[in-house]
């Protein structure tokens, strides 16, 4: 219920029961705060948000309260500017600063430090405290996060995020009163794959991004560009910071429906693959550096001889389309296995058909019963796992609400919620990091997961199946899902099992239109590539073998990661010439006759389509380098089209493909200009602009040109809250320099951005009927079912090329259940053969695995592919 309250004489609408601080902030009324956070709620630890509240019209005295701990009530009057409250806040910050080190000049946070902002806002500028400062020793928290404990103000945001929000266990508060310490019990790597968020959650410089610190530039020296994480199908929104033409770090870019305030570490540190020594910097002919002229001439000649194109789920939709245009749709292939192409098409068909709605991450958090079939979310789509951790707490919040505890009073919700958990059922093959929030974890092999799903669907329709692995639970789970208001089914392509997708569809169909569904695709643009069309690598090889084409153009793809080796070798054998376009050196570029360097995701604009079918645009974060143009520009030069800009290319796509029209509106086009000019990436001021001699020219007279985006690299341009949500380059507001100012950009705290969350959904549920599933290929009964192990810290070849992530990635694994290993006569540490071929890792045993499976790191030890059985034997 909503009411009108008065804040400093201003009448504002607010929901009764919300916290006063959130309301103030969403109306742009600045109340200093530290411990409150949009996603973590209130805890009342810092005492910084004091305001005077008058209970009603008759109350003349009022009282000083903490805004973040005060519920909105009918007829409230609030005085933020009240002198006593202001004095209270000034004293609080003075206390907080008594032990603060004299560190700003050598603190990474400085320049975008919430503590600096709040100190200045409250007017504390002279130190009166003359005694000694309490000090702490720091810890080494691993390769990703810095630690400088002296700067702590004990707001508890770090532990509330790390433990309560992200389910981490190894970061905690130690000590008491003035001595309280936030760290690990002993030095060591922070285990959570979300630890990088501490850099943004902590309002001071205690935790920071270690990679950024090593290649540091102040916030005011970096240009920031809106981008999309290229490391999984969730499609989290990023801000990519650049200085001197080099990407320095990636940060979270708020998106109400997707990533909200947080990223996973793969998305935060993985993008640094663009500065890796693995970059393909010069054209190669036969693996040897060659001139641009010779290499492109050779490529032209090879393509003239008749070429097929092999696209990539990590290349932009535009680059894939350009390649499809160049070679023609019959000669364009998807760059993944035939089986994966089929699986993805089917996933899209299921999503399109409905009746279940496609769940965004925000909707996942709103679900009240969840069934996960076969996906290890923490490792395959990490940010979604973080969302699911919030889903788990819904029951707790509901119970607390019944007891009158508001949802934002997070600590109290924990207590009042009595540890209740929303029903979350995980049916996976390997031990799952989400087991600690699951109400039921089933360890089944892929076939049993599918059978279990089918049985749940049948049970919902009243048919009880028999003879199943998890027979006892089927009925209960069916009942829980059927009685939920907002049931959610999550499945995906991780195990390569079509039957699991079908089972998910069957359950969703049985639940009807109140159900939500999320089907996880393998990569950032897997869905976009599947929408474009094109069969898999095996079909490409067959076409080459038939002699209808001589040349294979491979776009941004290390095929050996994405399809069984045999298929890729066939392709190399059948193609007379392989032309590879890539930003990274891979086995493909090394073996290709011609390899041409192209722009990485941070150097070109393009569109990715995420698991929901949301087309999202990313832009070049560094000035374009003509030696590494966007892949589509190279393909255009081969004769695919006459596109002078990304918009021209998008126009062609949209004209030809009615189902893709949405990509045109994913972000404003390059012609978009505001009254203040183009939206600028640059902060104000950008220092050092005139430090070089430029023969009398004002350096900013000719900022680097970027024809593919509505953003400018120059310092003159538009900024601020009026900028369209897809183009936000900074949250900086007068007096507010940290990402905490995002509150000004959202419609309400935690809600969509003003102007709507960016991106365009290319399809929605309920658009078509679902054709019956094609019969899946039999996989036999001999051997063990292969479970591809994903890893939050490695992902695919791009993220593995980031030195920061590589330092954090575990060694490749190959695991068996001890009983299976005993049957095979294998012991831990044994060298084994997979299907007769040696593999690069040794056997380990895990009793948490399902029986009858072998779990192997995907990408590093085995390529991905369809569900299959393999034989494991000892290497002699």
């Amino acid at each position: 219920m909503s009411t009108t309250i008065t804040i400093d004489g201003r009448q504002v609408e607010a929901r009764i029961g919300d916290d006063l601080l959130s309301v103030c902030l969403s109306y742009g009324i600045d109340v200093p705060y530290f411990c409150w956070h949009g996603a973590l709620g209130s805890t009342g630890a810092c005492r910084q948000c004091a305001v005077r509240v008058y209970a009603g019209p008759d109350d003349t005295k009022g009282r000083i309260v903490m805004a973040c701990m005060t519920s909105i009530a009918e007829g409230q009057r609030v005085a933020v500017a009240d002198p006593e409250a202001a004095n209270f806040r000034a004293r609080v910050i003075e206390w907080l600063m008594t032990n603060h080190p004299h560190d700003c000049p050598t603190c990474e946070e400085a320049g975008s430090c919430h503590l600096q902002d709040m100190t200045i806002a409250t007017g504390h500028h002279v130190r009166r405290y003359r005694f000694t400062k309490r000090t702490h020793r720091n810890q080494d928290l691993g390769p990703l996060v810095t630690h400088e404990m002296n700067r702590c103000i004990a707001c508890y945001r770090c532990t509330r995020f790390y433990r309560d929000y992200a389910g981490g266990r190894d970061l905690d508060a130690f000590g008491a009163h003035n001595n309280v310490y936030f760290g690990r019990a002993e030095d060591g790597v922070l285990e959570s794959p979300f630890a990088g968020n501490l850099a943004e959650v902590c309002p001071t410089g205690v935790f920071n991004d270690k990679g950024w610190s090593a290649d540091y530039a102040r916030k005011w020296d970096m240009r920031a560009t809106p981008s999309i994480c290229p490391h999984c199908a969730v499609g989290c929104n990023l801000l990519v910071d650049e200085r001197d033409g080099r990407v320095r770090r990636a940060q979270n870019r708020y998106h109400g429906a997707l990533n909200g305030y947080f990223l996973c570490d793969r998305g935060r540190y993985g993008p640094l693959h663009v500065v890796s020594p693995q970059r393909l910097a010069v054209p190669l002919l036969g693996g040897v550096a060659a001139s641009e002229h010779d290499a492109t001439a050779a490529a032209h000649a090879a393509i003239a001889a008749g070429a097929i194109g092999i696209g990539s789920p990590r290349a932009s939709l535009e680059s894939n389309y350009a390649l499809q245009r160049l070679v023609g749709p019959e000669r364009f292939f998807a760059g993944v296995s035939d089986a994966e192409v089929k699986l993805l098409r089917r996933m899209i068909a299921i999503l399109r058909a409905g009746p279940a709605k496609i769940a965004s991450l925000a909707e996942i958090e709103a679900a009240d019963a969840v069934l996960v079939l076969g996906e290890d979310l923490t490792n395959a789509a990490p940010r979604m796992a973080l969302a699911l951790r919030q889903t788990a707490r819904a029951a707790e919040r509901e119970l607390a609400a019944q007891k009158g505890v508001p949802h934002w009073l997070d600590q109290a919700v924990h207590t009042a919620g009595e540890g209740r958990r929303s029903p979350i059922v995980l049916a996976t093959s390997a031990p799952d990091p989400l087991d600690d929030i699951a109400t039921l974890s089933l360890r089944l092999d892929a076939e049993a997961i599918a059978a279990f799903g089918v049985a749940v669907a049948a049970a919902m329709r009243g048919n009880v199946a028999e003879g199943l692995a998890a027979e006892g639970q089927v009925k209960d789970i069916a009942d829980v899902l059927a009685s939920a208001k907002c049931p959610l089914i999550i499945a995906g392509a991780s195990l390569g099992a079509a039957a699991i997708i079908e089972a998910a569809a069957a359950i969703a169909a049985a639940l009807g239109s109140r159900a939500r569904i999320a089907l996880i695709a393998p990569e950032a643009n897997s869905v976009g590539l599947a929408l474009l069309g094109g069969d898999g690598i095996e079909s490409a090889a067959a076409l080459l073998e038939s002699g209808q084409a001589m040349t294979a153009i491979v776009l941004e793809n290390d095929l050996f990661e994405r399809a069984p080796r045999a298929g890729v070798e066939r392709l190399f054998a059948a193609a007379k010439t392989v032309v590879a376009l890539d930003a990274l050196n891979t086995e493909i570029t090394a073996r290709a006759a011609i390899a041409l360097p192209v722009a990485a995701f941070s150097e070109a604009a393009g569109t990715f389509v995420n698991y929901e079918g949301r087309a999202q645009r990313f832009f070049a974060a560094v000035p374009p380098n003509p030696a590494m143009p966007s892949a589509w520009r190279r393909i255009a030069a081969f004769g695919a089209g006459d596109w002078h800009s990304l918009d021209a290319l998008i126009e062609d796509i949209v004209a030809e493909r009615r189902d893709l029209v949405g990509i045109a509106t994913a972000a404003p086009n390059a012609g978009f200009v505001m009254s203040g000019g183009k939206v600028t990436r640059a902060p104000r001021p950008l220092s050092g602009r005139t430090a070089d001699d430029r023969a009398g020219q004002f350096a900013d007279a000719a900022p680097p040109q970027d024809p593919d985006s509505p953003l400018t690299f120059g310092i003159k341009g538009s900024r601020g809250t009026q900028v369209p949500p897809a183009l936000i380059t900074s949250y900086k507001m007068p007096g507010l320099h940290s990402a905490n100012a995002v509150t000004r950009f959202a419609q309400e705290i935690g809600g969509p951005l003003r102007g709507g969350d960016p991106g365009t959904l290319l399809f929605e549920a309920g658009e078509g009927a679902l054709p019956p599933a094609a019969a899946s290929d039999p996989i036999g009964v001999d051997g063990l079912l292969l479970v591809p192990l994903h890893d939050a810290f490695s992902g695919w070849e791009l993220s593995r090329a980031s030195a920061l992530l590589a330092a954090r990635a575990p060694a490749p694994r190959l695991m068996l259940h001890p009983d299976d290993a005993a049957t095979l006569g294998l012991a831990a540490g044994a060298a084994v053969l997979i299907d007769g071929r040696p593999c690069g890792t040794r056997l380990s045993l895990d009793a948490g695995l399902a029986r009858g499976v072998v779990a192997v790191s995907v990408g590093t030890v085995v390529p991905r592919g369809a569900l299959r059985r393999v034989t494991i034997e000892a290497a002699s």
Partner: protein
Amino acid sequence: MIGWLGALLRVGRKLAAKTETQLYPEEMPKLPPRSRGRIVLTRDPDGKERCVACSLCAAVCPVACIDLSKAVAEDGRWYPDHFRINFARCIFCGLCEDACPTSAIQLTPDFELGEWRRDALVYEKHDLLIAGEGKVRGYRYWSVAGKAIAGKDKGEADHESPPVDLKGLLP
């Protein structure tokens, strides 16, 4: 009549007065140490580079003619791995000196920056760094900063207590 005679007298008196105009460069002016000319980077009392590459001078510079980037030395100090000032752009306002938290950057009375080639006015760190402390004697940022460096552990800066023993049982 009296008026213009008086004026004539006042002007005439100037004939005998000491001239203000100096014959530069034959006669060099004596400028006070606070006058704002060529910029230098000074050193700590211990002879180490004072600048910690905080970039405040670069940010405050109204013509944006200072460019630097941070690196970390073996002993843990931050320092600029390059530091460049374009004196063709510098307006000698002294804001950088005001902003500098370490007193590293200082303006000197030397104003003789004539060059035939303008790019000769782009000074790199080795052109800027001097051997001494300049005008500010005795100040050493690292003695007051909380960040530990080799030779100055936690708790050893001015006004610091020894680090908290987290395993201790006393309140």
